């Protein structure tokens, strides 16, 4: 603020409501880029808050998985879960799913923006493209996190306690996941011009990502091909630590713990929770970098 008041941003005699409140656009600056990031972020929130239908529809899938599939299959699976409710087991995966779908949908809005012309308004602005991409990713991440919080509120219904530490840990983890997925979506959206194609591509990517991630099965003792695919899936490294956090707060038998929360291994080595979170964040940063390069190269 100090910088703005000292520069000559008003032409002499231009004060007063009429005839001209002439403004002068300052040269590019960090402050200008921060303002750009903030307004792009804010726009995502405004749009999300106006779209009540989207809030509800994006919860349908998590609900189906949690209560329909979870309840229905629990009768079949009761032998294998060592007394743990199947819904409790799938809950971390469902949480990740809510974040996944919302973040991807936020990224899709970039393709809409292109179709409806608004992207052009942003692209001609005298700010760095990286600010626009960052604002978009932060916006998508915030919106996805908000969706995650709604699912978080359901924890009590599936036997997960409302422990403040747990909620905080899960929140941080889903924030990282949300950012990474949005960055991935933005990276894809930079290349795709039609919303139909984007939806087709994301469907093709999201469902395998979800099913391979171990959201609905434990990741140990799988056939080798599935183990390889599972370890390559970025979602794995979000679902696994989230499940561990949840199970840390449950009172269950050691056998159940071993069977349901075996942890991800690389060639027999147990990947620690922090590294898993780091893998997710690193993938996000790479996607972000590619997205920035793609948008900066555009005229």
């Amino acid at each position, binding site marked *: *603020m100090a910088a*703005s008041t000292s520069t000559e*941003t*008003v032409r002499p005699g231009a004060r007063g*409501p*009429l*005839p*001209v*409140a*002439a*403004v*002068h*656009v*300052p*040269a*590019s*600056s960090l*402050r*200008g880029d921060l*303002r*750009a990031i*903030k*307004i792009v972020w804010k*726009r995502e929130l*405004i*749009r999300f808050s*106006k*779209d009540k239908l989207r809030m509800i529809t994006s919860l349908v899938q998590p609900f189906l998985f949690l209560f329909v599939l979870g309840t229905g299959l629990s009768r079949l699976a009761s032998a294998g879960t060592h007394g743990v409710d199947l819904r409790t087991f799938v809950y971390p995966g469902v949480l990740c799913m809510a974040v996944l779908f919302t973040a991807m949908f936020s990224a899709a809005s970039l393709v809409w*923006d292109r179709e*409806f*012309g*608004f992207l*052009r*308004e*942003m*692209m*001609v*602005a*005298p*700010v760095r493209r990286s600010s626009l991409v960052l604002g978009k990713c932060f916006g998508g991440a915030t919106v996805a996190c908000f969706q995650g919080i709604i699912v978080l509120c359901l924890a009590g219904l599936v036997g997960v306690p409302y422990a403040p530490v747990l909620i905080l840990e899960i929140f941080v983890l889903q924030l990282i996941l949300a950012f990474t997925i949005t960055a991935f979506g933005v990276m894809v959206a930079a290349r795709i011009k039609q919303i139909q194609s984007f939806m087709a591509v994301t469907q093709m990517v999201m469902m395998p990502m979800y099913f391979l991630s171990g959201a609905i099965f434990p990741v140990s003792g799988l056939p080798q091909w599935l183990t390889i695919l599972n370890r390559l899936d970025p979602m794995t490294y979000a679902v696994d630590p989230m499940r561990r956090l949840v199970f840390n707060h449950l009172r269950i038998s050691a056998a159940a713990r071993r069977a349901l929360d075996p942890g991800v291994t690389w060639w027999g080595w147990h990947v620690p929770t922090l590294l898993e979170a780091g893998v997710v964040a690193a993938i996000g940063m790479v996607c972000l970098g590619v997205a920035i390069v793609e948008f900066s190269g*555009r*005229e």
Partner: protein
Amino acid sequence: MNEQATGGGAVALATSAAAASISVHGLTKRYGEVEAVRGIDFEVAPGEIFGFLGPNGAGKSTTISMLCTLVKPSSGSATVAGFDVNRQRDAVRRNIGLVFQDTTLDTYLTAEQNMRLHAELYGVERDLVEPRMRQVLEMVGLWDRRHSAVATFSGGMKRRLEIARGLMHSPRVLFLDEPTVGLDPQTRSSIWTYIQELKAAEDITIFLTTHYMDEAEYCQRIAIMDKGVIVVLDTPDALKASVGHDRVTLETDDDNAAIAAIAEHFQITAQVSQGAVIFGVASGEHFVPRLFAELGVPIRSVSVARPSLDDVFMSYTGTTIRDAEASASEQRRAATAAFRRSR
């Protein structure tokens, strides 16, 4: 400003560019084999309303895109508000306002939210956002509607909002690409009223493209563009005068006899078009009395018309703007396809 003074030649260039608001030299754009703009030169003075007139596909939008730094020229140079469009892109962008053919508003947001978003992207000083927004929204008559979602706006209101938004950061040059295309005649004329009020109220250069002949009349100078080149550039009056003749339309009892008599007495070649005898003559109103005195064929009616910009377009390109559009549409499709591929 220190960006400009980088050497003797650059200083000289900057000085001449400072005099002109827009200065273009040999500007060319190729998309593959298609040459959309073929080496054009022109200058626009500060405070001028300058129009590019031509059929769709003539290269107007490509030119505007190059001047706005949205498309890189294949060759040639251009400065806008004193800044080079190739080397000082951000400086150009800070000093121009843009209104595109297609809407670029976020229709989910309200008018005010769109304006504020623009102000933030352009770094408009916070204290000035409110007064400036009020001023430009009042100018286009949308201040009372600022809390409405843009989705509820009519086509004309959206265009007005875009003009207001383009002015939000007090640009020195405002680019309007087909500002009235797709609007009804009443809205079109009100858009022109706003543009002229704007011209009176602010120190701004306006560069616009249009393919409506009647709208080109509002410009102080017009460049007629056809097939990627500027065929002529002058004031509307001078252009019309340059056609050199008024159009006289006669209804007679015997058209063939009248044509023969006109050829014999005045050495003018007339022709029959839509049941009337038509010919061009330097000063129509002085010619009519002689016509009555000397023709010898009964005349039922006579009318004299000043040349319109349609006649101007016809005389410089050898075709009417409608025919030019029809033939250009094929070429345009090729150019658009090439443009898509190049992205």
